[in-house]
């Protein structure tokens, strides 16, 4: 090339180069897809309203336990007979398999107030062997305290509708999401609804952290679509792995657990349905009925999109920490495993104890459960990266790339002309 050649970029060329750079940045940052038609939503998940207890309140029993007789001391109980792990467990050797122990409603004022509030009866029972009296509450119902003196079992209307409407609105819009507001604080009961209790005498219990995995629930009937859905989860590798890595359950209309716990949320009319939940029950994706995709690939795409939406408002830690596994073997002995864990030699290379005096091994070690590490390896990490815009061309992208190609060609022509 002639060293005396000088390049004089024209204003037009500079403007086009800048404009192309800006548009390229917009293409790489923006991801979009054509909106898909949204059917009439028919599934609504319950929404928690701050100020109202959402779930059961089994823990609400009288704090005043003055009515509870002192229980026998441990030594006295042991003297009465020390059962071992291998003692035959029957408690019906006398034929008293259906004991009619006397049970009376607790007449204490505090208990009555709470019982009235909860709509439950607290039973006290003196066991035949003179052991402690236990407060108890009816099982299985989901109690919701909605106000002072008002308690009702949670049995809301069909709640599937609004959820799936949101899901499909989310699916019809681009992947990139912007959180609107930070998550709300944990709601509490109105102050006036909380009974007066003595100051706790024992050490407060730390908040419980769930150790559950992500949950996948399939609601099936005998229809062809249900069979097809099952086939997707059998044959599609990613869906199959997802099913294996989640806590997967299948429910039918006749299933007693379904009737008791989910019938109000996922009506039979919406079968077959798919529900993907976070470890704490927070919905990630819900679809069913006419909104069920037509093929496995679409369902998988929907799930990935839903994970992206859910992750945008969840902390990564809450997802990543929800996995622990158990050794997949029969007769897994916790005691032996803990003993072996404590006997493991210290690692000299442990960066925490370079001098060899390592801290005790982790006493919180837990057994691993069957399956993999849950949701993220399948649906999580790849979702945020989205598509590579260089290789995905929509209508606008084709035109832009055409412009880029032509600009490059023109620059080459200009340089060649100058040579």
């Amino acid at each position, binding site marked *: 090339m002639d060293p005396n050649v000088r390049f004089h970029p024209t204003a037009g060329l500079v403007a086009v180069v800048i404009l192309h750079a800006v548009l390229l940045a917009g293409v790489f940052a923006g991801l979009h897809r054509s909106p898909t038609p949204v059917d009439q939503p028919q599934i609504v998940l319950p929404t928690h309203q701050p100020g109202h207890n959402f779930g059961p309140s089994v823990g609400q029993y009288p704090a005043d336990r003055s009515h509870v007789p002192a229980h026998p001391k441990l030594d006295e109980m042991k003297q009465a007979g020390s059962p071992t792990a291998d003692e035959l467990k029957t408690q019906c050797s006398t034929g008293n*398999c259906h004991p009619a122990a006397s049970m009376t409603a607790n007449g204490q004022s505090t208990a009555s107030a709470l019982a009235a509030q909860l709509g439950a009866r607290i039973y006290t029972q003196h066991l035949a062997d003179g052991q402690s009296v236990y407060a*108890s509450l009816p099982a299985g119902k989901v109690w919701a305290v909605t106000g002072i003196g008002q308690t009702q079992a949670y049995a809301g209307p069909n709640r599937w509708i609004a959820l799936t409407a949101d899901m499909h609105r989310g699916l019809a819009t681009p992947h990139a999401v912007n959180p609107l507001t930070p998550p709300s604080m944990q709601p509490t009961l109105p102050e006036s609804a909380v009974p007066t209790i003595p100051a706790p005498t024992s050490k407060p219990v730390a908040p419980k952290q769930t150790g559950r995995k992500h949950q996948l629930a399939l609601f099936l009937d005998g229809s062809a679509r249900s069979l097809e859905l099952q086939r997707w989860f059998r044959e599609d590798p990613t869906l199959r792995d997802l099913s294996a890595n989640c806590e997967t359950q299948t429910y039918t209309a006749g299933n007693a657990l379904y009737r008791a716990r989910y019938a109000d949320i996922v009506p039979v009319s919406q079968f077959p349905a798919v529900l993907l939940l976070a470890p704490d029950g927070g919905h990630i994706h819900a679809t069913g009925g006419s909104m069920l995709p037509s093929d496995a690939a679409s369902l998988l795409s929907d799930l990935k999109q839903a994970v992206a939406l859910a992750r945008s408002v969840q902390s990564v830690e809450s997802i990543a920490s929800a996995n622990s596994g*158990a050794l*997949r073997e029969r007769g897994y002995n916790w005691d032996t495993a803990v003993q072996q864990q404590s006997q493991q030699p210290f690692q000299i290379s442990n960066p925490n104890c370079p001098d060899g005096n390592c801290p005790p091994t982790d006493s919180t070690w837990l057994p691993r459960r069957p399956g993999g590490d849950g949701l993220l390896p399948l649906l999580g990490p790849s979702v945020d990266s989205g598509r590579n815009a260089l290789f995905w061309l929509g209508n606008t992208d084709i035109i832009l790339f055409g412009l880029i190609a032509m600009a490059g060609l023109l620059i080459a022509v200009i340089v060649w002309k100058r040579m």
Partner: protein
Amino acid sequence: MHPRSILLVLLAVATCLPGCDLPTQPRVRALPAPPPEQPVCNLPAELHTRNWLGPLGQGSCVHASLKNHAAWHNDMDFVANWPYSDGEYATRVRQRLDDAGYDYAFTERYDARFLDWCDATGHGAILWWKPSHCCTFMGWVVGDDGRQYAAILDNNYPGRFELVEREQFIRLWSGYGGFALCLLQPPATSIPYRSYAIEG
């Protein structure tokens, strides 16, 4: 065509086209989470199996507890077809589960961490509780006083959960042998709640 004219045409085209098909980004808002279900293994009362007398005239509390435990894991086949009755002891119940191909974890040393794990993972457990008896551990319940209480389903009294303060429970459990066992199957699905909403 003059190169400058070409450039002007391209500039005009590039100016007109951007803005079409631009994505509208959805705005996602987190919704409040409800308090966790208590106890975590909130088995509906209609699924509680009551204890029964077996052919040998013995109570079948272990098998009734297993059925309650399996029902929580949505293993209705177990509930309907588990073939055993009468009294049971730890080694034999484990052997029978092995023969049936069930994975499980167990402790015989009243290790409270095992029950903590069973609670955290939503499994629950069967355990020796009360003299010569077996019940189902349904999870820990936090009372208004901030203490933890064990929720126990006694198959002699189906339809309710009995609550025992944690420290007392562990002491008593040790006196009953300290055995507990849980099936390693997925537990029942949590009650779902709407965790986020899409706006815009």
